[in-house]
């Protein structure tokens, strides 16, 4: 399999009066061509910052890319010029964001917002872009695309706006689609429609997808592989089947067990004690050590090296390193 995107040791930090926040700390992963990679974690785990870093969308300052490489087809996104990154954004890498209500500009018509990318990256005339916009709206199954193209975002429902966002993102046939919690703000039946649409489009378009969500159910329906993040660190990466059948990192195990699923039978939920850590005030060593039931002394001093099991199941936990109880 060919790697489309390879991220190596990405470090995106935020500098504020209260100190340094290591939002993405030494994050490494890759996305294969045509593959969907899911990134899962709770609020503040760094999944959004990681995804925004890919096209250098993190605002600097207060953010800063401290280190690492983001290779898209071998080209390092962190090193290319501002001019080049703008050519890549919207053309090679596009984004769908969480809030359909606020992610579209309220004062421009839908058609204009889609046309904008087409005119910019495809060199289309206004007229061509307008026609193409209608086609894109058709592709995402918006009823009456000829009318909707002249609507303002406020006239559309949440689900329709998210479809329009998808149309906008796909307009220039990107190689990588980054979907940051695209269905979180939607109702269940509307979420089902949008996920269904995305699955269908996956077949049609030739793009890899990075799918960021906190919802384990959505991950299992959409993704080929899953990366689990906690407090800015990657703690586990595996295929979707592996993650749910055979989770290895104590955090992943806890996370899956504490989420009531439609098939949960027990009368009490599993609980990870404690709170989601404050990124301003992380413990030394493994950030999960304060909540982990298997915590050892060395967990509190240094973050573990990554271990690869079964060929491609990556875990960062001392339980699996040399001398660990589950090694």
């Amino acid at each position: 399999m060919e790697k489309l995107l390879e991220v190596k040791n990405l470090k995106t930090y935020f500098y504020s009066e209260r100190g340094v926040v290591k939002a993405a700390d030494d994050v490494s992963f890759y996305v294969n061509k045509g593959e969907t990679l899911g990134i899962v974690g709770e609020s503040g785990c760094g999944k959004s910052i990681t995804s925004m870093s890919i096209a250098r969308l993190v605002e600097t300052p207060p953010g800063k890319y401290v280190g690492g490489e983001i290779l898209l087809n071998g080209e390092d996104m962190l090193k290319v010029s501002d001019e080049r990154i703008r050519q890549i954004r919207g053309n090679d890498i596009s984004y769908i964001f969480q809030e359909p209500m606020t992610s579209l500009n309220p004062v421009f018509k839908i058609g204009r917002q889609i046309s904008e990318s087409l005119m910019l990256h495809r060199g289309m005339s206004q007229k061509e872009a307008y026609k193409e916009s209608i086609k894109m709206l058709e592709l995402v199954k918006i009823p009456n695309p000829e009318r909707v193209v002249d609507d303002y975002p406020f006239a559309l429902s949440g689900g329709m706006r998210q479809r329009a966002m998808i149309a906008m993102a796909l307009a220039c046939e990107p190689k990588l689609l980054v979907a940051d919690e695209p269905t979180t703000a939607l109702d269940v039946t509307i979420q089902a429609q949008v996920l269904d649409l995305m699955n269908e489009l996956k077949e049609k378009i030739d793009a890899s997808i990075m799918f960021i969500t906190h919802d384990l159910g959505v991950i299992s329906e959409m993704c080929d592989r899953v990366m689990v993040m906690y407090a800015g660190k990657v703690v586990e990466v595996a295929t979707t089947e592996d993650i749910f059948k055979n989770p290895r990192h104590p955090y992943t195990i806890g996370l899956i067990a504490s989420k009531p699923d439609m098939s949960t039978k027990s009368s009490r939920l599993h609980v990870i004690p404690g709170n989601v850590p404050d990124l301003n005030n992380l413990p030394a060593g493994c950030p999960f050590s304060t909540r982990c039931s298997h915590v050892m002394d060395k967990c509190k001093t240094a973050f573990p090296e990554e271990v690869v099991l079964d060929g491609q199941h990556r875990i960062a936990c001392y339980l699996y390193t040399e001398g660990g109880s589950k090694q």
Partner: protein
Amino acid sequence: MSENIVEVKNLKKYFPIKSGVFKKTTGQVKAVDDVSFSIKKGRVLGVVGESGCGKSTLGRTMLKLLDPTEGQVTFAGKNVYGMSRRELKNLRTQMQIIFQDPYSSLNPRLPVYEIVGEAMLQHGIVKSKKEMMDKVVEIIGKCGLFPEQASRYPHQFSGGQRQRICIARALAVNPEFIVCDEAVSALDVSIQSQIINLLKDAQDDFGLTYLFISHDLSVVKFISDDVAVMYIGQIVEKGPKKQIFNNPLHPYTEALLSAVPSFDLSLKATKKRIILKGDIPSPAKPPSGCRFHTRCPYAHDVCKTDVPEYREVESEHFAMCHKVNGVF
């Protein structure tokens, strides 16, 4: 166990829509439209539905935080809407509510002991400030907070801890019935499970009855004994949890259940997903006849014109559908 603690009869809550030059009332948002049900003491009734279905309005109207348009709510045999001021004040200690947003539901300017203890003083549950402090420490302890945290302010707590404070505040007046309005929806998964367990523990310890409002079916399935499904202001199906989840009658319930993404891989293979067409209609202009007919895969002509009867199909299992009623 079989005594009804809350009974809701033909409850309606409409909000006026004002428009035009003089802001005349030109229509109504029928947030809750003719809803009837009852909850047995000590049980949890889960209310599920999507945005705009009126589930939050239902909870608030039941507690008389909103004035009803029509209908009746009886709590422990007394009509909530026909109470004198004094009776209403007394009712406030018996029915409580926990909100979704752990940030806007606590007054940022008051320390925890004020937030939790205020109502105890108001209702004379405690006689002195000293007694109040002891009681507050006891209650927040039960909710998983430390005594020294009583003098802290809301901004010093995380979302999950804030929700614990909200629960402590509700428990402080010894209620019998609590409306949990999306009480765990804003929380992270690992915190959500802590709070759900806390709510379950509280229920066992105090013999509470819950109306558990949520859009998250898996949470409702976990915590509830009975489930009511709402769609645009109406309850379209209600029954014991098992029946609702194993044998849904209403096509909407069926679609809703199938739409929930699950990570149970064994389920994935067998499950067929029903994708509903179109958007959720606005409660300001609900569709005629059966309100679900615009999206229903089984809709017949009769569904567009006639409102289906809300009927007890099996024991304790109600539904509002022409197909279930055997009309076609």
